[in-house]
């Protein structure tokens, strides 16, 4: 989570902390499309896929479900402080894919309370987070979304290392007989499968692509500069047709992925106006396409040695990006389910 959130709440930090928090709750009041542009620019400027992911985890994955399904009290309690950067919210990337992975947190009803037990790994931003969005399954398999504050008794947060995206601080969450009231439930109890889960999945698929668009542009810019500076066989690389063709393909992939992203993001805005829903198919195809674009752009850039090692880091992080959001197997199944009207 690091820099953009944890620094003093400058304007820039505030903008990145709460772009999707409405103006009347102290946020940026940006549209989904504008937020994507902001995240693209952040990815390009920071040259750090991990930081970009950290920003998405807090400002989109932890924020939007609360905006969409939160009670007025929940919204008033959390969103202004999340927008200012005072509080950070965190979400596990293993919980943004519905129940395609078996749930690892159990919820038991005990009188007026819920008792949560279990462990969630790969929580983006966990070490610095103030609260967590956690999905837990009933004994009969129905799932509910919870807002769990860091100081809740029974909650433990443990920082974890990660080979990829290290600047998005990672952690593991353990809940041990963690007692929560009904006011900790986000949305309808036992209805996460039709409320928070589809939303989280689509947000993950769409918005995590945005910083990568910026990173790909940075890689392309580096590669162009590199081709003008370096020589091989005594000729500038910029004269090498294979280098030129590769750079052209990198540019094509950037444009295509950006187009996919902008359509999918705009649907979250159309939804806010017309009440129509964003298309999960478009969200999934966006991620499927962008993951492939990122893989091919980072592979093409990987033999360059950019000043700050962006090409190497991006190549490493690209594999992580391609494996999260469900990875190709989940995304292909989801898109196929839509196109084939099966699933």
């Amino acid at each position, binding site marked *: 989570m690091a820099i953009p959130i944890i620094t003093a709440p400058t304007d820039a930090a505030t903008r990145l902390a709460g772009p999707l928090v409405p103006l009347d709750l102290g946020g940026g009041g940006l549209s989904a499309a504008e937020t994507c542009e902001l995240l693209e620019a952040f990815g390009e400027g920071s040259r750090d896929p991990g930081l970009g992911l950290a920003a998405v985890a807090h400002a989109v994955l932890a924020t939007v479900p609360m905006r969409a399904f939160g009670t007025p009290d929940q919204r008033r309690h959390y969103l202004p402080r999340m927008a200012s950067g005072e509080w950070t919210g965190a979400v596990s990337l293993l919980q943004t894919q519905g129940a395609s992975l078996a749930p690892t947190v159990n919820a038991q009803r005990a009188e007026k309370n819920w008792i949560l037990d279990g462990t969630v790994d790969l929580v983006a931003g966990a070490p610095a987070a103030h609260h967590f969005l956690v999905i837990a399954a009933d004994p009969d398999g129905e799932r509910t979304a919870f807002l769990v504050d860091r100081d809740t008794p029974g909650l433990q947060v443990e920082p974890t290392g990660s080979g990829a995206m290290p600047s998005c601080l990672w952690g593991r969450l353990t809940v041990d007989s963690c007692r929560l009231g009904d006011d900790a439930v986000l949305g309808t109890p036992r209805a996460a499968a039709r409320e928070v889960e589809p939303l989280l999945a689509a947000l993950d698929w769409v918005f995590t692509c945005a910083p990568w668009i910026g990173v790909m542009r940075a890689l392309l810019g580096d590669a162009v500069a590199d081709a003008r500076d370096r020589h091989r066989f005594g000729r500038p690389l910029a004269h090498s047709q294979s280098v030129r063709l590769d750079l*052209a393909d990198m540019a094509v992939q950037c444009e295509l992925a950006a187009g996919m992203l902008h359509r999918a993001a705009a649907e979250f805005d159309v939804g806010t106006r017309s009440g129509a829903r964003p298309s999960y198919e478009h969200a999934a195809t*966006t991620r499927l396409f962008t993951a492939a674009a990122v893989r091919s752009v980072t592979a093409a850039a990987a033999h360059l040695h950019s000043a700050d090692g962006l090409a190497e880091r991006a190549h490493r992080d690209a594999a992580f990006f391609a494996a999260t959001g469900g990875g190709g197997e989940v995304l292909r199944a989801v898109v196929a389910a839509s196109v084939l009207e099966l699933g």
Partner: protein
Amino acid sequence: MLRIDHPRTAHPGIAARAADTDTTGHIPAQNWKELADAGYGALFHSDEDGGSGADSDAQVAAMEALARDCPSTYWSATVSSLLCAKLIATYGDSTHRPLLHALISGRRLAAFGVVETAAGSDAGTYQTTVRPASPPGSAGPAGTGFTITGEKSRITNAPNADLAVVLARRERAAGDDGPDWCLAFVDLHQPGVHRYAIPHMGLRGMPWGGLVFTDALVAEADVIPVPLDELSEGMTWGWLLVSVAAIGIAESALAASVAHAGSRVSFGRPLAHMEGVQAQIALSRAEIDAARLLARRAAAERTAGRPARSLIAMLKIYATEMAVGVTERAVQIHGATGVTAGHEVERLYRDAQMNVIGAFASNRLRELVAENLGLGPAVYAPFDWVRSTGLAQDPVGLNGPSLEGT
């Protein structure tokens, strides 16, 4: 739920005749009538040019819908009513209004004569030349028109067009310091014109072939000097046309794949339940969407008159190669059915490759994109830099030169 749907068929009659159009290599007259009735050509042109002034999204949607129905008919009709008509609208004047209307309405058909037999898209090699019908100072009455001589090849609509918009060199009189090149609007129904057809792998219904001009006559008003550079912006209409053809072909191939996967049962289950098939379909869905979104954006820029050369080049590169991949997957999903002559997918597979070849080739366009990225123009040098480096020589084996030849 919001869905900006991809276009479905717009001309069921044309779609129903697509297989026959391919088999016979001939576009039925009924197709032309239905397109004229639908006002297809008018969509691309403003009211003042005699069109109906559709916005760019509607234009792309209409193009794709026709490309889905019958790629051959789409190519033939769109080369004439979009590409050629745009060139006439841009470079012609009021005397060309009737001609423009005839192309837009589909009453006349035009071909765009660029490529010659020597070397594809390299204009430096073109020989076709326009010269004054009677050279100034000769015996005949001067200034009554021009003649054109040369051969254009691999031209859509060449075998049956009424008119060709031809890129030609200008033979300039002394003191004429205008451009070296011109566009000539040449009536093809005259003695100095010979045409021939070239049989081709895909888009078989699309007329394709060559035009041989031997002192064919061109009216003075129909020869328009144009700098070559400027013309290249006009050609982007052609790249857009080809790209949308590819997208329509890919969408049809995907639709056929989805239908086949849903109905074909193998090993007791529909193909649609096989993840391998699902993966191919999901990938095709994502790739077609990406191409279409770029096509809409590029068309919006181009229609608004903004420079879109690099964007349309990117589109042409991606969309045409994408469609080859999508039709390939469609053939694989269909198995032997997909290579049976007369099957839609067999036809689309052959059609798709034509778009990669049509207009500028992919690598030529990649060079253009690279230049636009700031890499400078392509710099050619003879390929002679490997051997001097000590590479590209067979090395010795483990024991070195001492044992060689023993």
